[in-house]
């Protein structure tokens, strides 16, 4: 495709097809092709290098944001670091928590898993099994309990048991369901309340310290709707990062380029399978190589 001696101009349709097939989307593909034409490289090789560089630049421009705040032993002021896992239905939130718990455990951290999905059948049991597998503490509520109160109890228990981190599992929710986005805001406030960081008056984090991380979990097979998901979730809660799951399939996850370009959110981890060890830190370089493979 990018062999030497091919007119760059005649490569454009192939480049467009490659990017569109990777779910990069119409607008971002157009932006990249326009940039390529402005740069007007002499050879196919140069064109390839230019595009890879451009995409890598988009994806790494956010890596300068550290996980906020950095994970210290015991969290801050004796309160565990709180990480929320949010996203639409079926993307891999619960499984990702199990994987991250395992990773943190191997780093010597004491981890608490909070089953705040009180809606879906067997959601609490599913997370309970991951808690066993990753040897983490576990707190769940009764069926249909108020999710925000489970968050509050879970975070309080994590502090009482001197955990370093509390990973909060939430129910999947389509971003179009306004009442569920409101429920999520309530859950986020509950975590802040448990840490005594906010006045109990319902104001969104920004004042006291909110949950330390709110990660949006995205399925690599998702098309352009992924961008809507990111926009609406970010509008509702202060997301701090992204996780891309099911990257072990054949999908390239190109929608991520548009999402990162628009939101500036860093990609923290990538899910590459269903086993507990199948979680890798994100590498922009590898992602870009695979995108253009």
């Amino acid at each position, binding site marked *: 495709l990018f062999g030497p001696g091919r007119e760059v101009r005649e490569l454009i349709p192939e480049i467009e097809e490659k990017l*569109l097939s990777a779910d990069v989307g119409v607008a971002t593909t157009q932006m990249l092709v326009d940039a390529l034409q402005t740069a007007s490289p002499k050879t196919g090789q140069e064109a390839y290098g230019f595009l890879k560089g451009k995409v890598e630049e988009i994806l790494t421009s956010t890596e300068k944001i550290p996980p906020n705040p950095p994970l210290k032993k015991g969290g801050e002021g004796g309160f565990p670091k709180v990480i929320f896992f949010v996203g639409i239905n079926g993307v891999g939130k619960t499984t990702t928590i199990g994987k991250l718990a395992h990773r943190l455990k191997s780093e010597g951290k004491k981890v608490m898993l909070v089953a705040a999905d009180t809606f879906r059948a067997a959601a609490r*049991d599913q997370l309970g099994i991951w808690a066993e597998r990753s040897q983490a503490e576990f707190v769940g509520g009764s069926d249909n309990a108020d999710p925000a109160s489970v968050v509050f109890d879970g975070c309080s228990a994590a502090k009482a048991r001197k955990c370093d981190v509390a990973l909060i599992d939430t129910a999947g929710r389509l971003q179009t369901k306004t009442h569920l986005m409101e429920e999520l805001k309530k859950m986020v406030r509950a975590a802040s309340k448990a840490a005594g960081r906010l006045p109990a008056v319902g104001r969104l984090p920004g004042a006291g310290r909110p949950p330390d991380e709110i990660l949006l979990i995205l399925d690599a*097979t998702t098309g352009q709707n992924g961008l809507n998901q990111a926009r609406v979730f970010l509008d509702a809660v202060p997301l701090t990062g992204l996780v891309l799951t099911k990257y072990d399939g054949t999908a390239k996850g190109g929608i991520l380029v548009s999402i990162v370009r628009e939101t500036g959110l860093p990609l923290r981890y990538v899910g590459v399978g269903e086993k507990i060890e199948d979680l890798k830190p994100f590498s922009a370089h590898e992602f870009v190589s695979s995108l253009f493979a």
Partner: protein
Amino acid sequence: VLGEKFSSVFKKLRGYGKLTEKNIEEAVRDVRLALLEADVNVGVVKSFLEKVKDRALGEVVFQNLNPQSQFLKIVHEELVAVLGGAEKTLILEGKPPHVLLLVGLQGCGKTTTAAKLANYFKKKGRHPYLVPADVARPAAIDQLSTLAQKIGVPCWPTKTEDNPVEIAGQAVDFASRELNDIVLVDTAGRLHIDDELMAELGRLKKKFGNSRTLFVADAMTGQEAVKVARAFHDLLKLDGVILTKQDGDAKGGAALSIQSVAGCPIYFTGMGEGIDALEPFSPERLVSRLLD
């Protein structure tokens, strides 16, 4: 002379004569962008547009339309036709038990849909039976049996150490003795590139003389929908498709991509998390959203 003048005015009023490459060029471009933004696969968009242009070129423009809107009207009709035209009913008649296998990628909604389907058939006076054949995912058996209990449908007591193919066989034998006429088998999510797990589905299908394989797919699946559907279809010969999570705002272009390779009807669409949230798939409704 006046007659000529009038007839030329009428000719102008009557429109542009016929659809040509030139006068539909912009409309073709707009449709291509709309379909791509709706997640229809790049290759599928290309072949669809070629087919539609073949049909459209040379057509006479109707009196009240201009070429662009006439072309859009044709596109709309063709998309609805490709998606099956009208709502299709899943008819299960003849010698029971009718075995339905629910297959698809991880997290697309198989377990939830299995329960929804059981509920749908129960409401129609049938006697469904649920079989949890996912022994891999934590609490998957629990998930389906909880839903089964909720809707009052019997469910096989699968254990995690069971073999999915064996368990399905035993359950179907049992269900048919109990006079359940429809057996719904929920399988574990799997990648189309996982040869071992795909082979397991092949063995599962072989277990029954007569079964239907229903491909469950997420409405927001992107470009990969073609590859995935093709892999499942090539191996299993899909009998039907169920599109889930259509209660979101995904355009659902994956439906077109899947249809282009699986060639079987999209019977149902998942319209929510509740057990009643299952509707017959409407090509008209999806196409309106697609071109919106």
